């Protein structure tokens, strides 16, 4: 049995040590907001926070999580940054198919937590890892600026 803390709740899971966090969250805990895209750390659809850092859940063996706190898209509406980012995403009409957006939002929120008003260069540097096949990039950039401009995000 492994204990994993997801969105503030401890879960006991009976899985192999090498099982990626992505599949623990999706197939064992039944939280499907975190998406499977590539299984190889190449697309960012599975991005979650581990102790506040954006990480690829598909590349994170469950045994490596230990006592770290995992946060997924399901909890983001309850955080000030998450709420501001989600609202900016809606106002900016970022989403199309929407499949990559939980990952995009998780990475954007982790960035904003460290850099409350990221520049375009920072956005390129950080968001580079997350692919969007629908081509929502210009709006992702605009939504990040919207969420972080005019003191929308609580410090």
């Amino acid at each position: 049995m492994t204990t994993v803390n997801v969105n503030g709740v401890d879960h006991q899971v009976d899985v192999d040590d090498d099982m990626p966090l992505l599949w623990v969250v999706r197939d064992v805990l039944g939280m499907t907001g975190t998406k499977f895209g590539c299984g190889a750390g190449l697309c960012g659809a599975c991005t979650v926070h581990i102790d506040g850092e954006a990480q690829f859940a598909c590349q994170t063996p469950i045994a490596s999580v230990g006592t770290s706190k995992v946060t997924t898209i399901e909890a983001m509406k309850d955080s000030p940054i998450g709420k501001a980012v989600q609202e900016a995403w809606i106002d900016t009409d970022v989403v199309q198919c929407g499949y990559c957006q939980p990952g995009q939002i998780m990475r954007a929120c982790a960035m904003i937590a460290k850099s409350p008003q990221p520049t375009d260069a920072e956005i390129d540097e950080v968001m580079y890892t997350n692919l969007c096949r629908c081509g929502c990039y210009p709006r992702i950039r605009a939504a990040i600026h919207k969420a972080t401009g005019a003191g929308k995000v609580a410090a």
Partner: protein
Amino acid sequence: MTGADTDTMAISRRGLLRAAGASAFAIAIRFDGAGAAIAPASFTPNAMLSINAAGAISLSLPKTEMGQGVYTALTMMIAEEMEVTAQSIAILLPDGATGRFGKVTQDTGGSTTIRECWEPVRQAAADARGALIAAAAAQWKVAPGECSATDGQVIHAASKRALPYSALVASAATMKLPEKTLVKTSGYKVIGKPQHRLDSPAKVRGEAEYGIDVRLPGMKVATLAQAPVFGGTLDSVNEAAAMAVKGVVQVVRLPDAVAVVADHYWAARKGLEALSPTWKDGTNATASQAAIMASYAKAAQGEGASAMAEGGLDAAMMAKAMAGATKKISAVYEQPFLAHATMEPGNCVVHVKDGGCEIWTGTQIPGSARDEAAKAMGVPADKVILHNRLMGGGFGRRLEPDYILRAIEVGKQVQAPVKLIWSREEDMQHDLYRPFYHDAIEAGLDADGKPIAWTHKITGSSIMARLYPQYYKGVDADAVDGSVTTPYTLPAQRVEFIRHESAVPTSWWRGVGGARSAFVVESFIDELAHAAGADPIAYRRSLTSDPRTQAVLDMVAEKSGWAAPAPAGRARGVALIHTWDTYMAQVVEVEKHPENGVKVVKVTAVVDCGQPVNPMGIEAQIEGGVIFGLTAALFGEVTVADGRIEQSNFHDYRLLRISEAPVIETHIIPSSQTVGGMGEPPVATIVPALANAVFALTGKRIRKLPIAKVLTA
């Protein structure tokens, strides 16, 4: 007038609020049979619409949502005719059933949704409105013509009476529906006005359910390996090793594939590795990219079938026309195979039971996929239930039922619901790819450099011939779209099509035939402009007398600052299309880039798509289509070696990243003309616009894609 007085209320916004039901902004995305919309319906005027006793309107969406925004646009069309807000309508994604929406097919592709639905969907809503008006008029004993609907209520202006829809549904349900109620042709309140997407809240919260997210009690999860060589078959597996993996419950062998069934995906994946399947490669084992390309070039030497209406000019007539030219220019263009690479890999949940099956998946063809599933099951269609889900991208990939049929093959051998998930590698290596095309094109120019003769021979796979053999007469009508009818006046023109297939299976890919044509026609027109020493926009403009074509060119020149030279180190290119009933021009500004050869700095897009439905949706489609097209133009290529696809994941099938995305500026020309399509046009226009910009920047004419590979070779 029993009850009428007590039901009557002042004309106000209360009716609207009542029609909105409890939630003014729907968060959840609803599906047939899963917490269905707003039952029980009190009034169901047709297959798309129902209204409950509270007056809340529910729309069963006749087309599928894959990101392109029809969830919002179709709802706006309903809202317009029913005199409510789009946000107030509860949207239901329905199960697949051929014919359930009459003339409107659930099949969604080829930029057809708005064009196909414009009349019937608005008519369905207008008829519902007509019935509610008739119910009110009967109650008030006035002529229906004296009444109108607004803000979710029917009003009789002369007597200042109003009834909300909620007060009318019961009687409307029992009345004979009035004859066709006229749809609006002007004075729109919703259509043409910016509308935020209705599906955003669920999607940004991770609450939207895609096919891959479906979970059922007792469900198993499977993953598969398919014969790596096209046409290969399964040889051997180490079943004991797979079964030894914790969580693996079953191995399912198929003639050309094998699946491992487990408690979760990770166990299935580990089981598949342990299974170590081996294959018999069959006749395609030595197929190579070079050999395939050579076979197309060879096939292109033959004579094709004329794609022109009534045959067009024959070879002798063309030779005569060409003989009058002062200059001849010819070129060969090639376009590679492409994978769809939807972010959500292939997946399907199936439960084979009770002499039929139940399916949960995201598909662009819920009705025909259900029919195909029934065929595969050997049962009548009514023994198959297909629950459609949101799609994590379509782009034509989900116009094919193969991944559903694969899941049925597996599901037939599993005594439980099973979710078959394709790995990214399987998804990329067992796609049905955008066809490889070889285009040979020649123009004869007069003394002014204008084309007086034009021959264009297209050699490639025919998707139409595969899907509709009974109608196929030697020309793939989709592949030649945009080649036969170009935006230009071409006095003598011959277009031929030669069908040529390889081992690589092919299918629809965003932009379809019009995009393959646009790359060739718009690159070649640019070559002619250059040969004539003419400005590319002025040259195009001189070849058309269509005022709408001229207007998009004029506006793109103005908005892109075409008249002024590009900033130092930069250059611009232009392209124009008139396909899918939409006119579009784009100007692309580029500069050199050390890694990719070229960096796209800015795209200016001008569109005349007739009456716009949702301007915000149009902008999003243009931005997304431009980026989708840039990925293809710069990086897109799928190649074959030893009979198998070489690319496997995003490291060797590159997508554009945020750091590579240009600024995109969109201008929509106001219009009340017939509606045009929006999904394909931006993809079709960007590829030649970029190729032409690359020529302006580097002097290198791009006749083969992808561009980054050509420039960095």
